[in-house]
């Protein structure tokens, strides 16, 4: 696995989550990459506030973009799609991704309340949800950045709340992080096959792959990045439309 390659897209997902935070949504975001051409094809941010549903999660927004481009009934395309998402997909999203037959899911921090790729349930490898499909799940990339964005969000929500909570979330902790327990998501063998033997120390010591948090990613304004991202996704659809024969849409 090319770690730097995955980190490049995780940085984009993280920037998008910061963009979401700056625009009054939950700082959870995702990027869908077409693996064979190595290009961004879609993105997603939570849309639960505007949509008035509890199911408009970032993943569903990105899936809708892909369906708009390749046809809503086309599931073939998902076999070539890798999802990069700042927070582990919830059980509903993990199930949706599996039913579509997605190739791979890479995420930042775990979802301790609703996680469907290992934290609560292991939908991505189960036998009751479209068992003909299963996807590779890569946890823990830019985990600290994802956690910090959520902390920014909760502190702000608490400040705005008419009845602020007196406990844990009242102060912003910029220093400490819970240990990265890889074993929730991966066996030792699974970790080795993804990251290589040289990084096993991180598994054993429950460490993040990067000790430093990239503050630029989560503190800078990302409005320009967002424009650029939209352009990238639009360009992809133009390219796909130019060569319909070489890329049949069934």
């Amino acid at each position: 696995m090319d770690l730097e390659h995955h980190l490049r897209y995780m940085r984009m997902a993280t920037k998008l989550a910061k963009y979401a935070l700056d625009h009054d949504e939950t700082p959870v975001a995702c990027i869908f990459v077409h693996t064979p051409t190595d290009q961004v094809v879609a993105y997603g941010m939570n849309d639960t506030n505007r949509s008035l549903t509890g199911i408009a999660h970032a993943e569903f927004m990105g899936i809708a973009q892909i369906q708009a481009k390749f046809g809503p009934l086309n599931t073939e395309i998902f076999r070539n799609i890798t999802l990069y998402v700042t927070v582990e997909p919830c059980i509903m999203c993990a199930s949706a991704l599996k039913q579509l037959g997605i190739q791979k899911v890479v995420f930042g921090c775990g979802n301790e309340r609703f996680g469907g790729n290992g934290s609560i349930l292991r939908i991505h490898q189960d036998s009751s949800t479209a068992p003909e499909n299963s996807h590779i799940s890569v946890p823990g990339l830019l985990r600290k950045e994802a956690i910090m964005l959520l902390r920014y969000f909760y502190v702000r929500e608490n400040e705005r709340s008419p009845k602020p909570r007196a406990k844990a979330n009242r102060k912003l902790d910029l220093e400490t992080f819970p240990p990265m327990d890889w074993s929730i998501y991966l066996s030792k063998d699974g970790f080795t096959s993804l990251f290589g033997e040289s990084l096993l120390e991180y598994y054993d010591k429950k460490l993040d792959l990067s000790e430093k948090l990239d503050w630029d990613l989560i503190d800078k304004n990302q409005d320009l990045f967002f424009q650029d991202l939209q352009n990238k996704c639009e360009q992809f659809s133009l390219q796909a439309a130019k060569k319909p024969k070489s890329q049949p849409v069934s």
Partner: protein
Amino acid sequence: MVKKKQNPYHINYKEGIVENCLLQIRNTGCCDDPRVKNVWTVDIRARDSQQFIEFIRLNIQSNDPVSFQHIKRIKKGEESGVLTVIVCSKLLIEEQDDFLLLMKDAPFEYYNANDHSAVPTAAPSTKELSLKWSALYWPLVWRGNPNDQIMNDYVFDMAFIRNTLTTLSKVSLDQAEKNASDPPVVSAFVSPNGRRVIYSTDSRCSTSPLDHSIMQGIRSVAASEHERQAKNCDQAEETYLCLNFDVYTTHEPCSMCSMALIHSRIKRCIFLQPMRNTGALESQSGDKYCMHNNHALNSKYEVFRWLGSEYPVPEVNSDICC
């Protein structure tokens, strides 16, 4: 809360069946798991126990995610005249600093504040188990099987349920006849006051593979609320997500849909046909998720399966996620 004897419904508590036709669906696999959690305890003088109880009532009870109804908050301490008392769960207060801050306001003296005691957060289902856990962890109160009380508190409008299931069955049979591709899975979303019923059908082969009837129903409820807001009318009909809705569906929902119902904050789900391979609610279905009654997920809703054959539904391939 009515007394068992005065309950208007016929309830078979042992089997979990109401009126001989609604089977309560719950996680049978974890009933005897105490789910032990640590709590903050302090020692107080026996004569301060009234103040302690008042302090808990005012400052703690409504905020603590752990219910101590089946637990004796107060037990005898090691010395005479001293009581060891549970203040709150560690889920409510994690750090010692925060705990001591809370105790600053306590109108009584206390000693030996610590988080070493672990108590069962689940209530035991039998008296034997209650005695066992009392000896093992912390003294418990035995008030009967807690599920009996849950069963006893349910409220049903049997005529309404039968009506809705009649329509559900009819729409489902119609779908099977006129639409060869989409599976004939149908759901009904009933608003909390029961005045609005929104029916939704599965359209995975015509609109999107993820457009199961429950996902479609959730979006229809939102569309209806958008419409109401646009017209700015009828404040009494305002809805938030699907909060306190009852959802009726022909086939047991899959992992995606059963979780979507948690996100949507529904109150109850009643279904007709179990899906043994793909279902995510029954203890015997699929990977035994019992999504609505899974203790790792702190949200929940009531689930019942209709027993009996009054409301037939077309068969759906057993590998299909509904």
